[in-house]
């Protein structure tokens, strides 16, 4: 759990440190307007349902044939689209990184139904190489776009990342840095 928290908060913390080092201030975040935040919480609710409400997962994925990961991605990308138009240009460039990363992950998921992970990378990260979950499956010869899957082992954190994950993390760090540096509009 601690490792997951580290992985999730590190991009924001890196962005804060870089932003301050570049002369930014927390107060500048107050100028950032985030619209339709409820969309993010809705996406989070869908993801929670995907993990913890098997009957919802079965209904949506098996009966309706809609991958819940695709629903999460669609809602989040809609939120980004609604917000990015009002963000300052440097933050828009950071958002491009985030969207590119999401597209990379989304393509791998769309091509395979779930995010494939490289079994050898999982082993190097100290994880099992055979277990399937709601979001992941081990890659094999039939896996498409395997290079976009989780192929980068992080043994220290016991995790496997994809190239898309790295782009998303870099984009979040850059967005936070730019947000701290932006000058408040008068």
């Amino acid at each position: 759990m601690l490792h997951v928290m580290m992985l999730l908060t590190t991009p924001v913390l890196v962005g804060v440190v870089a932003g301050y080092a570049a002369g930014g201030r927390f107060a500048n975040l107050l100028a950032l307007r985030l619209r339709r935040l409820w969309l993010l919480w809705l996406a989070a609710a869908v993801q929670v349902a995907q993990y913890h409400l098997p009957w919802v997962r079965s209904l949506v994925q098996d009966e309706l044939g809609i991958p819940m990961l695709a629903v999460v991605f669609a809602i989040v990308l809609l939120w980004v689209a609604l917000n990015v138009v009002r963000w300052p240009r440097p933050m828009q460039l950071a958002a491009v990184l985030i969207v590119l990363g999401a597209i990379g992950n989304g393509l791998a998921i769309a091509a395979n139904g779930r995010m494939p992970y490289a079994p050898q990378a999982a082993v190097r990260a100290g994880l099992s190489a055979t277990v399937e979950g709601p979001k992941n499956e081990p890659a094999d010869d039939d896996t498409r776009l395997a290079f976009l899957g989780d192929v980068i082992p992080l043994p220290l954190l016991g995790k496997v990342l994809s190239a898309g994950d790295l782009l998303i993390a870099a984009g979040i760090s850059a967005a936070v840095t730019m947000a701290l540096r932006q000058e408040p509009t008068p």
Partner: protein
Amino acid sequence: MLAATVKEVSMKQRMSWTRIVLVLYALAALATLLYTIGAPGATEGS
């Protein structure tokens, strides 16, 4: 009067920090939702 002013400033500061934390939390949530951090067990809760 002074106490009321101090209270108002304090409330504004609290609201500002709440908003700052909300912005940072939203960006962290964005990453969380888009990550597909992988392999068995690793994605739970991510």
